[in-house]
């Protein structure tokens, strides 16, 4: 694998600045990958692939533009191209949800977050990513549209559909977990949010 050398050799100062910014984005790439795959191990594999791709493509990045959006786009492309390659495509979401279920058997894990993770995993992929980018990743609708390569209006409607669907899932307890009565998740999420807002 030949790394692509920028014309006339790399500018060391630029490379250094690029690398510093890229390193700072690693935690965010991991978090985004986690929401896409729902599985910590698969997420880190994905984030590492994206990191490598971003480094190899550094010559095509324009310094001063939004590197976070640029790397998220790379990671997202990587995720969907891997998903397309997989013949088990339709099973992926379900499997990730099941692995998440196993992972949350840890009794010390906070309940509301588990339910939220499960609810999120039940959303259609394009709604999930839109909601995560705007609702958690701190991106503007315009930036999220660029990352997802769709119209701003499409992102807006995906986010609002995702919000409604997630609320409905959490209220009815429609997520796949035994021994929990309906409405418990929403109640604990409300209680937690209240606690957080009084702490701050």
């Amino acid at each position: 694998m030949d790394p692509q050398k920028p014309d006339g050799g790399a500018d060391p100062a630029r490379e250094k600045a690029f690398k510093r910014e890229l390193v700072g984005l690693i935690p965010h790439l991991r978090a985004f990958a986690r929401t896409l795959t729902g599985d910590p191990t698969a997420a880190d594999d994905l984030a590492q692939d994206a990191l490598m791709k971003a480094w190899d493509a550094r010559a095509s990045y324009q310094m001063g533009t939004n590197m976070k959006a640029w790397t998220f786009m790379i990671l997202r492309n990587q995720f969907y191209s891997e998903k397309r390659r997989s013949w088990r495509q339709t099973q992926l979401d379900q499997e990730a949800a099941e692995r998440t279920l196993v992972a949350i058997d840890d009794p010390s894990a906070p309940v509301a977050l588990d339910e939220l993770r499960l609810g999120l995993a039940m959303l259609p992929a394009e709604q999930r990513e839109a909601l995560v980018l705007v609702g958690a990743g701190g991106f503007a609708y315009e930036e999220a549209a660029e990352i997802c390569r769709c119209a701003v209006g499409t992102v807006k409607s995906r986010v609002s559909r995702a919000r409604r669907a997630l609320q409905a899932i959490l209220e009815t307890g429609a997520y796949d977990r035994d021994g929990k009565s309906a409405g418990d998740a929403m109640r604990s999420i409300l209680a937690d949010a209240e606690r957080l807002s009084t702490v701050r």
Partner: protein
Amino acid sequence: MDRRDAKAMIERRDEQPRRKPKASLDEARLRQQAIGVKLRQMFDEVVNEPVPDEFLEILRRADSRDSGGE
């Protein structure tokens, strides 16, 4: 007397639909805010995890590869 009770009941029933949409709208907003808070918390939890060494190793390897290790 019976009639007045009935009338009061009807009035009460009339009031309810007017008050309910606003209350449930506020409630819905509250729930959405709560979900939003949780969503960010979920994301930030991963952001705040220490970065596994393999990530930095990737960039270290890329560096030595680029500076012509051969």
